[in-house]
């Protein structure tokens, strides 16, 4: 039971990070390598909020951090990515540079030592076969709610339909009167906000440093590639696969060896199923990329 809870808490966080990345990748064909920095920004926002307002500021940070993330994401989209829409591969390099600058800037402002963050409540909940930290159960709950919300947004609203249309065929979507630029911007900000929210949630469970996000980045990309590009179900399934494999392996072997095994596994899976486990909305968007 505890094992299952461990797996699901890791999977949920991974899914939240991967969701934004998957949608942006599917829509704009942009690989945002700075995405992981938004996880770090969320965690730092929590640290700042708690340093100012005490332990209870967690609830405030839960709202403020996504807003901060969305604003910064808007800046990134407005000032850098928009200039590079016709050169998709260069956006990868540009966002890589941005992530480098952000990491170092965070280090310069806040120092290299880990920041102090607290979980808003402690205590354990009895579950069959032992007890489990209440905070982790809270994380699972929040992540599930948010993911379900995204799913509803995608599947049931007019906005979601438009998003899927843009993913499937941007030119056609534009021809039917959808403002693709605007949708791109909204999706980008939304993805950034989700990543920041995930940052707030994971912060009390890990040590908050400037390179906190990097370890999530590579996994989030595996999730997308494994699950299928631009598909929500795919990224959820992908995070379940990667999260389960990694958690189970890390019981038996060294964590870094576990991530190596996961890497090898995903490379082998890609060889035999290049379009992902659940192919996305975009039929044309295969591993070749559109660029």
């Amino acid at each position, binding site marked *: 039971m505890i094992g299952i809870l461990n797996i699901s808490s890791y999977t949920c966080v991974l899914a939240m990070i991967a969701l934004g990345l998957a949608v942006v990748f599917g829509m704009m064909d942009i690989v945002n390598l700075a995405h992981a920095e938004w996880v770090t920004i969320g965690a730092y926002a929590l640290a700042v909020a708690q340093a100012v307002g005490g332990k209870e500021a967690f609830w405030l940070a839960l709202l403020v951090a996504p807003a901060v993330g969305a604003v910064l994401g808007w800046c990134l989209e407005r000032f850098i990515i928009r200039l590079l829409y016709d050169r998709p591969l260069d956006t990868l*390099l540009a966002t890589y540079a941005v992530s480098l600058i952000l990491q*170092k800037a965070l280090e310069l402002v806040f120092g290299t030592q880990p920041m102090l963050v607290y979980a808003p409540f402690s205590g354990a909940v009895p579950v069959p076969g032992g007890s489990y930290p209440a905070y982790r159960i809270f994380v699972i709950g929040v992540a599930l709610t948010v993911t379900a919300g995204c799913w509803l947004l995608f599947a049931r609203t007019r906005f979601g339909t438009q998003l899927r249309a843009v993913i499937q065929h941007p030119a056609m979507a534009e021809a039917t009167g959808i403002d693709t630029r605007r949708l791109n911007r909204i999706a980008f900000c939304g993805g950034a906000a989700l990543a920041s929210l995930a940052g707030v949630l994971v912060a009390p469970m890990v040590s908050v440093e400037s390179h906190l996000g990097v370890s999530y980045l590579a996994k989030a990309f595996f999730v997308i590639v494994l699950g299928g590009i631009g598909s929500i179900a795919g990224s959820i399934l992908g995070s379940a696969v990667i999260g389960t494999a990694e958690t189970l392996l890390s019981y038996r072997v060294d964590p*870094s060896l576990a*991530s190596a095994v996961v890497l090898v596994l995903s490379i082998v899976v*890609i060889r*035999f199923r290049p379009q992902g486990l659940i192919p996305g909305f975009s039929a044309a968007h295969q591993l070749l990329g559109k660029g």
Partner: protein
Amino acid sequence: MSGKHAGCLRLWFSQPLLGPRDVSPLLMWSVAVAAMAVVPFFAGPWLLSTVRDALVMGILALSYDLLWGRAGVLTLGHTTFLGLGAYGFAIATVQFGQASLTGLAVGVLCAGAVAAAIGYFLLFAGARLHFFAIISLAVLIVAQQLAVSWQSITGGDTGILGIPGLSFGVGSHTFDMRGPRASWYSVAVVLLAATALIGLVCRSRYGKVLDAIATNEWRAKACGYHTSFHLLLVFVASAALAAIAGALMAACSGVVAPDVFSPLLATEVILWVAIGGRGRIGGPVIAAVVLTLLRQAVSSYSTDGWPLILGGLFLACVLFMPNGLRLHDLLEAARRAGRAVWIRPLVHRAGHAREER
């Protein structure tokens, strides 16, 4: 059968006749040869070893230029192979007490095998562009984690110390490449040879095939080329060259630490090729040497400054100089600016005249 293969190879690598286009590369190469031969007589040992380390980075830049510039395969983890070469050399010479040439071979074989495995699974599956870049980044991160945590072999965070320098015997005579001047010459010879070799390959028919694949893979495929296979070949060759650079680096500096796997260095490699100009051969090497020396100068003032400068340079390069920096363009821009300063009154008058009309 072997005759057929030899004929095939001759067809691939046959060189066109010397023409006016070959003058400037030949000239540059000869100048480089002369400079490499002469410099040790003027430079002190400290300067010599600093520039030598920068030249090793030049070899790395060359290998990446072959991969990204020529074949159009973007990877974010090219230093994986540098690190594999360095660790292979270090482990073979220090832990197993092998000769340095064996160490070099082990390093190159390791890197080549890893590149072949990754390349087979990814390139043959059709993974290109973003996907390949991201997965190579992940490979780099995992390699770094393994280098840190697998202490019994790699020495953990401290790495491996006391790596012997290069030395090899031909017949009864032993060449010792440990002194500052000898190691300079060995690095210079490898760099110049690699430059010449890659220059020749790119000049031949095979270079044209690579250009075709980089420009439009579908068309190249339609012309009957097995593109995945050619990309895999270039990937492995580039990894082997990077591993040679790694082994030279380990032999020259005497230490290997998990730092060689740092994503920062991988970023620098991309920057060198981006600034030096993709697909050109001299540019990336010069950019690598200059930027490595610049990094050493900057990090003697502050250690935090370099990544920020690197990120800024990188962003500026991607946004404003997608084709790299060219001496020719610089001169042209300077000439235009100079002319604008000189002829400004004329331009104004012309503008007025147009307005009046």
